[in-house]
């Protein structure tokens, strides 16, 4: 089945092409468009499942060897690059060659010779090599890409089904699904490509689709601005990524993953303070990942991206596209693990982003904004995991996060739909009664993200924190753990706040209807004295503006007229009472809720080995076992050995020396040098038990999650007035968080304004000086031509006319006289002329 995986990206592309090219012209009906889109993604999903099954579990399973479609003939020479000069990283290569040379010479000696030898002369060439660079278009199926294929097509399928309900009645229905299908294609190329350049194509493709979909409501200024912001911010990251790809080609002479990583694994590790070519490449890659995955300096676009339709937020800005950075960092973990500095940078940026976004999420009032900052924060957690060397756990969190965050975004979409395009949580409350399916599914997502024990988020988040505490890859692991734990508390707090404000408590939407004067007054009263309510400013949500004069009163007298003018899709609503969403919306929610509950069981941690009787239970179904072969092991300098499926437990123990470096290794310490204070090891030194230590950290993470949830409940359920009181007491912090730490304002001042000033200055230069020179020259030449024209007209023409008149007057009688009209005169002239000619020709002979 693996040989058909080229169909996986192709099918959504075909669906998108049909919808996008024909949908408008032939006025496809909504069921047809939705059927094409959902059908193509569903087929892709089925093929992915079958391919991954036969790759990992079938009779001739190739796992963990990467399967390339070129093995079965699907590949073509996409970019015939020709010879490239491999001129980077030569010091490291020379070192490797010398080492190899030395080992060969030593191996060739007998022991006696070896003992007598004082020194060996070895050599290596430092002349630049040339490599034949041919970039092929082929897909790669390996443990990492298979997980992403399943996430993208599986979660994507749920979201597509949801979108058919959510986008019902939109004018650009066909356009929406065309973009979504295109996005699926690009995302699948990104994760399935077998080389860096294909990843880049997918990378740019998802960026483009993100731009198109954020700007889906292009007639609204904030959506247009947000799409441009996302696009431009991503350009910064893509610039770094492109440089890193050039670096890879210039260092390894290839862009194929298998080639590059086989060469890279022999390179020396660049410790803290060393900065070599692999650090440069890793830096470029991480800049790219920061842009795409909204990490700290470049995170500003993701919250604004909520201006797109909610299914887009769920698919692109929560579940798939923003995790492309994680995919890339994990894919290139060989390179990242070669640079301790970059690992530290990744971990610290991830931790900073996690706490930064989590604290902003606490004070936001737009339900989608809260989820957006939550996504940024969770992405920070994932980078934290990668930075401390636990790449597998990062991908595990990508997966569980895709489940529960897609679920919550879709739930938010359902709420927005049910509330008639109301996104402000201050106008919600008590929705539990009206939207039971949405409520219960949302509840699963809430428990998962807070990290309550059997739910999926617990397993991945706890593993991240444990790996941060016990890392030997980088120093400051304890700091990363501490920040992560605080961020986890904040996460539990703001998600509880979201639940409370949306589903519990008073039904505030009854007190004042959406939009209009009364609504503003209500919203202002809600946080009286805190800050100016932002409803007067354009919000970044996908709530349509109410037109002036439009009826926004509490009760609609004429429901039929209201439906006709509002176009809410024909569902009944009187006094803006919320209603449950149709089955096309809550069924995907239910599926995702199930996944959010049980999704974590593929990664039950080693702490539960007394219960599960295995370090990584489940054999290949365990995500750690499944993914480990793509992770490079710094202590053995090889990729991790694959655990055999026949005896997973025994294999783990037997293969202890090579695999021990992964998470809690003593051997790893020697590779990365002394990394200072290690929290987990210190605790272990006092408890004298690894198991107890792991459990201590599990209990800590559960306790902080509980504290966060209890605080949330206290502030927003049991004592609602406490929120305002504490906001007043911590007013500077509150204002900072509410205004998102003024990052947007800072960028606006430091970057946008400067750019505009520069543009204005350039424009002024252009219009005054350049245009002035050109215009001056033009008027000069006009003056000159007028002078020349005058000379021409009066002087030259005068001379010519005078001569002509002279000839006319004087010569014409003469010539006229020659024309006698008698043929014999003419013949005479001819004969005379003949005689003259004869005389001239024969003059020499005659005279």
């Amino acid at each position, binding site marked *: 089945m693996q040989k058909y995986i080229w169909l996986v990206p192709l099918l959504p592309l075909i669906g998108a092409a049909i919808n996008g090219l024909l949908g408008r012209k032939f006025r496809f009906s909504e069921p047809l468009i939705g059927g094409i889109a959902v059908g193509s993604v569903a087929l892709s999903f089925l093929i992915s499942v079958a391919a991954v099954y036969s790759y990992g579990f079938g009779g001739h399973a190739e796992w963990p060897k990467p399967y390339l479609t070129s093995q079965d003939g699907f590949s073509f020479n996409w970019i015939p690059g020709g010879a490239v000069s491999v001129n980077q990283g030569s010091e490291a290569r020379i070192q490797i060659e010398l080492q190899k040379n030395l080992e060969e010479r030593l191996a060739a000696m007998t022991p006696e010779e070896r003992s007598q030898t004082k020194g060996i002369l070895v050599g290596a060439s430092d002349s630049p090599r040339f490599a034949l660079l041919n970039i092929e278009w082929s897909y790669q199926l390996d443990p990492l890409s298979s997980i992403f294929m399943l996430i993208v097509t599986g979660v994507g399928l749920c979201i597509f089904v949801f979108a058919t309900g959510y986008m019902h009645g939109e004018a650009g229905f066909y356009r929406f699904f065309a973009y979504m299908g295109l996005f699926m294609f690009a995302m699948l190329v990104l994760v399935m490509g077998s080389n860096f350049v294909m990843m880049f194509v997918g990378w740019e493709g998802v960026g483009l689709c993100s731009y198109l979909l954020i700007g889906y409501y292009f007639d609204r200024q904030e959506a247009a601005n947000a799409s441009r912001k996302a696009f431009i911010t991503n350009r910064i990251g893509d610039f770094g990524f492109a440089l890193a790809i050039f670096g890879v080609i210039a260092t390894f002479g290839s862009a194929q993953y298998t080639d590059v990583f086989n060469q890279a694994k022999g390179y020396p590790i660049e410790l803290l303070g060393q900065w070599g070519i692999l650090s440069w490449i890793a830096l470029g890659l991480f800049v790219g990942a920061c842009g795409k995955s909204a990490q700290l300096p470049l995170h500003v676009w993701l919250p604004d991206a909520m201006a797109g339709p909610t299914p887009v937020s769920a698919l692109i800005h929560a579940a798939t596209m923003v995790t492309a950075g994680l995919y890339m960092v994990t894919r290139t973990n060989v390179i990242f693990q070669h640079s301790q500095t970059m690992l530290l940078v990744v971990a610290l940026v991830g931790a900073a982003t996690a706490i930064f976004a989590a604290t902003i999420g606490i004070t936001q009032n737009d339900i989608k904004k809260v989820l957006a900052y939550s996504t940024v924060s969770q992405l920070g957690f994932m980078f934290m995991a990668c930075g401390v060397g636990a790449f597998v756990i990062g991908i595990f969190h990508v997966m569980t996060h895709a489940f529960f965050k897609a679920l919550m975004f879709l739930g938010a979409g359902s709420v927005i739909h049910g509330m008639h395009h109301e996104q402000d949580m201050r106008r919600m409350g008590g929705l539990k009664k009206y939207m039971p399916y949405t409520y219960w599914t949302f509840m699963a997502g809430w428990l998962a993200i807070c990290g309550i024990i059997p739910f999926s988020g617990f397993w991945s988040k706890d593993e991240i924190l444990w790996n941060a505490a016990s890392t030997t890859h980088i120093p400051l692991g304890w700091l990363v753990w501490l920040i992560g734990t605080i961020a986890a508390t904040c996460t539990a707090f703001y998600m509880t706040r979201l639940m409370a404000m949306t589903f519990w408590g008073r039904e505030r939407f009854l007190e004042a209807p959406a939009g209009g004067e009364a609504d503003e007054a209500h919203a202002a009263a809600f946080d009286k004295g805190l800050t100016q309510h932002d409803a007067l400013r354009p919000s970044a949500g996908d709530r349509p503006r109410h037109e002036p004069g439009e009826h926004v009163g509490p009760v609609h007298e004429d429901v039929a007229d209201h439906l006709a003018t509002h176009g809410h899709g024909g569902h009944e609503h009187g006094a803006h009472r919320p209603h449950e969403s149709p089955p096309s919306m809550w069924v995907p929610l239910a599926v995702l809720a199930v996944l959010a509950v049980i999704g974590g069981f593929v990664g039950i941690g080693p702490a539960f080995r007394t219960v599960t009787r295995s370090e990584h239970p489940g054999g290949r179904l365990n995500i750690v076992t499944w993914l480990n072969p793509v992770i490079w092991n710094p202590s053995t300098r090889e990729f991790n050995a694959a655990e055999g499926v026949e005896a997973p437990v025994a294999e783990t123990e037997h293969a202890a020396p090579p695999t021990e470096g992964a998470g809690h290794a003593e051997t790893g310490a020697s590779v990365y040098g002394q990394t200072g204070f290690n929290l987990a090891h210190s605790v272990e030194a006092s408890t004298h038990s690894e198991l107890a230590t792991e459990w201590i950290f599990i209990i800590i993470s559960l306790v902080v999650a509980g504290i966060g949830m209890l605080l949330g409940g206290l502030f927003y359920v049991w004592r609602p007035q406490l929120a305002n009181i504490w906001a007043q007491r911590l007013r500077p912090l509150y204002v900072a968080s509410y205004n998102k730490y003024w990052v947007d304002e800072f960028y606006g001042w430091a970057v946008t304004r400067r750019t505009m000033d520069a543009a204005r200055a350039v424009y002024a230069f252009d219009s005054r000086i350049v245009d002035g020179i050109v215009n001056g020259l033009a008027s000069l030449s006009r003056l000159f031509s007028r002078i020349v024209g005058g000379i021409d007209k009066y002087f030259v023409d005068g001379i010519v006319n005078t001569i002509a008149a002279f000839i006319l007057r004087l010569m014409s009688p003469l010539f*006229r006289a020659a*024309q*006698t*009209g*008698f*043929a*014999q005169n*003419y*013949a*005479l002239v001819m*004969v005379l002329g003949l005689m003259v000619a004869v005389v001239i020709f024969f003059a020499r002979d005659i005279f």
Partner: protein
Amino acid sequence: MLNFTFAFLLQQVEDNRFAQMRHAAANPDLSKFLWIGALLFIIGVAGVLTRRNIIVIFMSIELILNAANLNFIAFSRYLHETGNANALAGQIFTVFIIVVAAAEAAIGLGIVIALYRNKETIWVDEIDLLKW
């Protein structure tokens, strides 16, 4: 011209070979033909330039053409005697010229008739339509 003739005769007389003279008269050399051709040409040109009757002018033109024909024939014979392979070219040319002259005569006489019908004259000094 007279000087030449006398010198020729004198030479023959002095040589006293009458038979040879007769032979020479029967087989004239090239220059004699050329002289005749030149005379014909001059007569023709003079006729064209001086006569007023258009028919006579026409006849004079025929004389000019035949002067050329005579030259061609003479050279053809001369070349044949000197053993040149292409000697027949001159004769072919002559045939061509006769044909062309016939055609020209047909057209020219037609023009003359048309002219006469219009102008009631064939005197060229009364025909000055080419005047400006």
